[in-house]
């Protein structure tokens, strides 16, 4: 391996990235845009639920109950209805997602939650589930007030994310996803472009070693992927306020490992695809399942066994577990070595296949 040849390839690759406006935009803006977009959009927190109230009791106690609901911030009283039909109509018109009905006998047996009904719009199960939870929570507290503290029920504690903010779940996942997408896409395009333009032919005929070409093509994208990792992490910590509980060093080290893993996927695509269009399609084919199956949004535990097996061969799955554990739980190497070994194993496999195919192309 000669440094001059390696340096020439490195320089050329950097020029490709920085002179192509589309890829430069992707490199610089994708972490910012994605973090902002997903950071706010992938939000399963529910508050300000538009609610209609039908108070048939019309007493001080019932008004207090309504006030209790309102004060939580989860419910926003939109409509004070006089009859059931108004509530029905409001549901149909999508004006409300919840309806609170207080039966006439509520005050006579104050604190009797059986006389209070909460109707929930189940069209969006996520919202419905949240409403249900909040309703239960408020119901309980009302019962507590009424019965002087003799409450029966589970005492639930939520660890690591006590306020159950969805951003603390989403942000670490997003960091991993952004890194994967950028790195896979850029690397996939880099070699395919040479195939498409025929420049690969001249490289094969020149006294350029495949190791020089591979390394020269890898290093720029490792650096770019890594910079995007830091940018995404910075936005997650500084803007969204998701602190890193565990070792930053372990996070950076595993992050670097994952960049190399994504790069291998990209390289593998570029050895198979014949055109940039094909490379794009394959990239989407890789990215889409990894969004759905890596546990980025949907928990792996509730997936059927078959799907879970697939998710086990997606490197992002392991990296998300690693990221979330380090960021939220403060997990160390001891608690994560299984995931780290799995990810390293997948990386080694992908990289060696990619290098082998790469060398075949250079012949």
């Amino acid at each position, binding site marked *: 391996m*000669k440094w*001059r*040849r390696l*340096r*020439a*390839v490195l*320089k*050329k690759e950097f*020029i*490709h990235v920085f*002179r*192509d406006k589309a890829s430069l935009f992707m490199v610089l803006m994708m972490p910012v845009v994605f973090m902002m977009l997903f950071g706010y959009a992938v939000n399963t927190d529910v508050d300000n639920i538009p609610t209609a109230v039908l108070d048939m009791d019309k007493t001080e106690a019932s008004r207090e109950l309504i006030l209790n609901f309102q004060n939580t911030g989860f419910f926003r009283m939109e409509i004070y209805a006089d009859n059931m039909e108004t509530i029905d109509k409001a549901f149909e018109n999508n004006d409300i997602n919840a309806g609170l009905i207080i039966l006439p006998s509520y005050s006579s047996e104050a604190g009797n939650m059986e006389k209070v009904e909460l109707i929930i719009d189940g069209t969006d199960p996520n919202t419905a589930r949240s409403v249900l939870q909040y309703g239960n929570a408020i119901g309980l507290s009302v019962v507590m007030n009424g019965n002087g503290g003799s409450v029966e029920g589970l005492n639930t504690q939520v660890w690591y994310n006590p306020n159950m903010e969805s951003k603390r779940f989403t942000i670490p996942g997003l960091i991993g996803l952004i890194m994967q997408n950028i790195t896979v896409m850029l690397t996939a395009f880099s070699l395919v472009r040479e195939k498409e*333009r*025929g*420049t*690969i*032919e*001249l*490289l*094969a*005929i*020149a*006294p*350029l070693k495949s190791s020089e070409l591979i390394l020269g093509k890898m290093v720029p994208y490792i650096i770019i992927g890594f910079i995007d990792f830091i940018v995404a992490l910075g936005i997650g910590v500084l803007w969204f306020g998701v602190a890193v509980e565990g070792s930053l060093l372990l996070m950076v080290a595993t992050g670097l490992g994952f960049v190399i893993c994504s790069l291998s996927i990209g390289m593998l695509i570029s050895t198979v695809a014949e055109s940039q269009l094909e490379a794009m399609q394959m990239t989407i084919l890789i990215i889409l399942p990894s969004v759905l199956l890596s546990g980025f949004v949907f928990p792996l535990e509730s997936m059927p066994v078959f799907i879970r097996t697939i998710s086990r061969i997606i490197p992002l799955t392991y990296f998300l577990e690693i990221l979330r554990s380090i960021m939220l739980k403060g997990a160390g190497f001891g608690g994560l070595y299984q995931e780290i070994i799995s990810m390293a194993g997948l990386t080694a496999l992908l990289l060696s296949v990619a290098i082998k195919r790469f060398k075949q192309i250079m*012949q």
Partner: protein
Amino acid sequence: MMENAIELVGLKKSFGEIEAVKGIDLIVPKGGIYGLIGPNGAGKSTTIKMICGVLEPSGGEGRVLGLEMGAESEKIKEKIGYMSQKFSLYEDLTVSENIEFYSEIYTIDLEKKKERTDEVLRISGLGDRKHQLVGNLSGGWKQKLALSCCLIHKPEILILDEPTAGVDPVSRRLFWKMIYEIVEEGITVLATTHYMDEAEGFDSAAFIMDGRIIAADTTEALMKKNNVDNLEDVFIKYAIDSDEETFEKEYKMMKRRISDEMA
């Protein structure tokens, strides 16, 4: 004393079941332009790729500049320049960045780099355009740049694989004028083409069909021997002798392709 640039003895190449090159004997002397002429799929490109050291021969042997094919392919690579019809250039790099890239890939002595760069810019006349992006150049200029890039390391053999396919007639003429100038300086050129008028300007030529050489000599001798006054007729004669039926089909196809490209 090494007299010949390329010597091939019974060179073969198979891709699985298909035998693309069925045993080629070829001697290309040093200096001058040597043409490798034949229809598409005759094995021209495969032969060239083996000479370049990109493909490993499956049989036979060969020496390029006295270096053994296969075993010494890395050394061979440093001494040959190769250009194809595709103009392998980076369109998002400038003219001088492309030249710089290849001069580094061929690790040209640092003290000679400037001199070589100026030299290829002079030959191609690209000096005024060295800061332009290649993507903005016309086809003719791109072709000149491609030639500059493969001459940057001062190769002893220049291999041109259908260098003028799809290029307009004026640019073709100018291109060969440039090549003749380079040959004056002592470089050996091995070229494939399917334009017979181009081939008539070559010093020697070999006709290749169906993976075999069917005739090889100086272009003058070839014409004299067959009692015709142009190379096209020579080609037809040899080809008809070798296999009338397949030849006619291939020749017609070739003709059609040329007229398509001209159009």
